Every structure is written in structure tokens, then in C-alpha cells.
């Protein structure tokens, strides 16, 4: 009887090691976002940062780059997304060192580098705000499959900008890898980014 109990214990122990120790390593990562199988490198970026310097994706070589198209006059969805991304990076701890978050302004008329410098680092010192001419931003949005359109409204705002709410992730090799929708929890964002950064 004792012998049988011993064997049961051994089997349970081995199963636990397999379940908790081995399977998570061999099981493929299940992404929370939509995976993109790109055959070419992510489209080139060439815009002005909130520090007034020209920035390209090559500046972040070897990093996972999150690209979000938003604008500073947007009080609701844009800060919610940037706050979620900041929280995701906090959850990742040291793993966040290899992740860069970029917000490309879809409102370049209002969002000068100075305006972006007041807005973007308020969420995280390492976040980068990018702007350019309207044509430059429109070209970049098009090649990334992002929609935006200026719309006049009544009231003090004057105009607002409709835009794609999802954000994109470029992997360490420079390939567009993932699209995450607005509302993805910081935990899920952190899970996907940690996998790509690992």
C-alpha cells in the first residue's frame, strides 16, 4: 500500500513538473492581438521627435517598437491607451527596457514638437512623440494601414481627428508583428510585449 502511494506521489510530481515547468516553455505563445505575418520589414519612419530630432525605426534597432497614432488634443482614448501602455511596461519590469513606445501625431497642425514634449513624457519618460508635415504623417499612416481624418465640430474644440484606435507592434527584427485593439488590458499587452522582447 505504501509502495503504491509512493508511486502515485512520483507520478503526480512528474505531472506537476511537466505542467508548470516544461509546458509553458515548449507551448507556442498565444498572442492577445492579431498577428501579422510580414514578409518585408516595417515601413520606414522619418519624422521629428518631441525633442526636435529626426527619428527613424533604425534608431530603435533591437527593440520592440509599439507605434500608436493619436493626438494631444484627444482627451479620452489617446491618454487611456498611453496610460495602459505605461502600465504594461511597469508590469514587465526589467523586460520593458527593450520596448519603445512611439505616438505619431495625427494632428500635426497642433502637435508641434513642443506640444508633444509637454504631453508624451507625462505618461513615461521613455515614450517618444513624433510629428511632421501633414503629408508625411498621412503617408506613414497609409503604409501602416491607419486611418485618420480631421473633422470640424461645433464648440470650443474647433476640429477633432477621427483615427484608428488600435496600435501596432514591430518586433526586434524590424518586422510588423502585431495589432492590438483599444481596450486590451495592460496585463495582456505586457504578456505579448514580454514574449516579443524575450
Amino acid at each position, binding site marked *: 500500500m505504501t509502495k503504491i502511494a509512493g508511486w502515485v506521489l512520483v507520478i503526480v510530481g512528474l505531472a506537476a513538473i511537466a505542467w508548470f515547468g516544461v509546458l509553458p516553455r515548449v507551448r507556442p505563445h498565444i498572442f492577445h492581438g492579431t498577428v501579422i505575418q510580414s514578409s518585408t520589414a516595417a515601413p520606414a519612419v522619418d519624422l521629428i521627435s518631441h525633442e526636435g530630432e529626426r527619428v527613424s525605426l533604425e534608431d530603435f534597432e533591437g527593440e520592440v517598437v509599439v507605434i500608436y497614432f493619436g493626438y494631444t488634443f484627444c*482627451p479620452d*482614448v489617446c491618454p487611456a491607451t498611453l496610460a495602459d501602455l505605461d502600465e504594461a511596461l511597469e508590469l514587465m519590469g526589467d523586460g520593458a527596457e527593450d520596448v519603445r513606445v512611439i505616438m505619431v501625431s495625427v494632428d500635426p497642425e497642433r502637435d508641434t514638437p513642443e506640444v508633444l514634449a509637454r504631453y508624451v513624457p507625462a505618461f513615461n519618460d521613455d515614450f517618444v512623440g513624433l510629428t511632421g508635415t501633414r503629408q508625411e504623417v498621412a503617408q506613414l499612416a497609409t503604409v501602416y494601414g491607419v486611418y485618420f481624418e480631421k473633422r470640424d465640430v*461645433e464648440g470650443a474644440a474647433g476640429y477633432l481627428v477621427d483615427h*484608428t484606435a488600435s496600435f501596432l507592434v514591430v518586433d526586434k527584427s524590424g518586422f510588423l508583428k502585431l495589432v492590438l485593439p483599444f*481596450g486590451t488590458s495592460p496585463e495582456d499587452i505586457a504578456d505579448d510585449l514580454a514574449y516579443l522582447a524575450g
Partner: protein
Amino acid sequence: MISPTWPAERHRIPAALLAIVLVVTACGGDDAAGADAGPTREVGGTDDESAAAATISVTDAWMRPAPAGSATTALYMAISNDGDDIDVLRTATIKGCAMTELHMTTMEDDVMTMSPLPDGITVTPDTTIVLGPGGIHVMCIGVETGFTEGDRATLELGFDGAGAVVVEAQVRRDG
């Protein structure tokens, strides 16, 4: 009419918590909002940001931090109509903002669209409208004094029926 189902599930106040808060505000409302109460009622200031008027109660008011000079920020809350009549929130004023407007974000085919609500927000009896990220919000345009985490922002709401309701909102990063 504004549907009470916004915003997305993850931002909605748990029903049980809201129920507790509403019970608390209903009890406090007897003293604060009697039949002879003036047109302006100063409420809120508790940890859960409860506010009570005769028929309207406002709970969990919070606002995103924004430094002075920022273009905008947003304020959120839950508005409950505990009375028998439809009430409409027409105006909102945040102290420290050059302009305050009621706005709504809608999402269609992954495109975010924000629009002012010039006709206000209708709150039907026995209904709670939850203002939250990705849905209805009070938009502060022109941040004058700056709001940092831990501050309290003063908001005055103007209802057709309940009159003026003053709410203290917590300044914090997320709901």
C-alpha cells in the same frame, strides 16, 4: 437618447460596488437634499466620491492628470437618476479649465470618433449612465491651473431637474 451601456465592460463599475455606493448616497441624501434645498448642492468629498442630490447621484468622479498648459483632459463619473422623472445634464464646468464640454467617443470599425453632445446627456429614471474611457466624458479644454495625481477637481453639473450639483473628482491616472 444616450444608452446606459457605455463604456466597455472593463471600465464599468462593478454593479455590487455601485449598489453599495448608491445606498450610502441615498441615505445621506435625506439631509442634504430636502424639499427646501437651494438650487446648488455641494456634495462629494468622501473617498468614493459619492454625491447626492434630490434625484441625481454622482459617484466615482475622477479626472486624468494634466499639467498646466495642456490642451485637454477628461473627467469621468457615474450619474444615477433615482427619481421618477427624466432628467438631462446640460452643462458642466470644471474649475481650472478654460472651457468644459460634454463629449462622446464612439468606435466603429476600429476608428475612434469623438463628438460634442450639445443636447446634453439624458438620464432616465432608475438608470445609471457610466461615463468612462472610450465612451462619454466631460472634456476640459484649455488646462489653466494643472491637475496632478492626488489633487481634487471641482466640477459643477447643471441638470434640468436637479439643478446645479457640485462634485469633487479625484485626479488619478486610470479608472
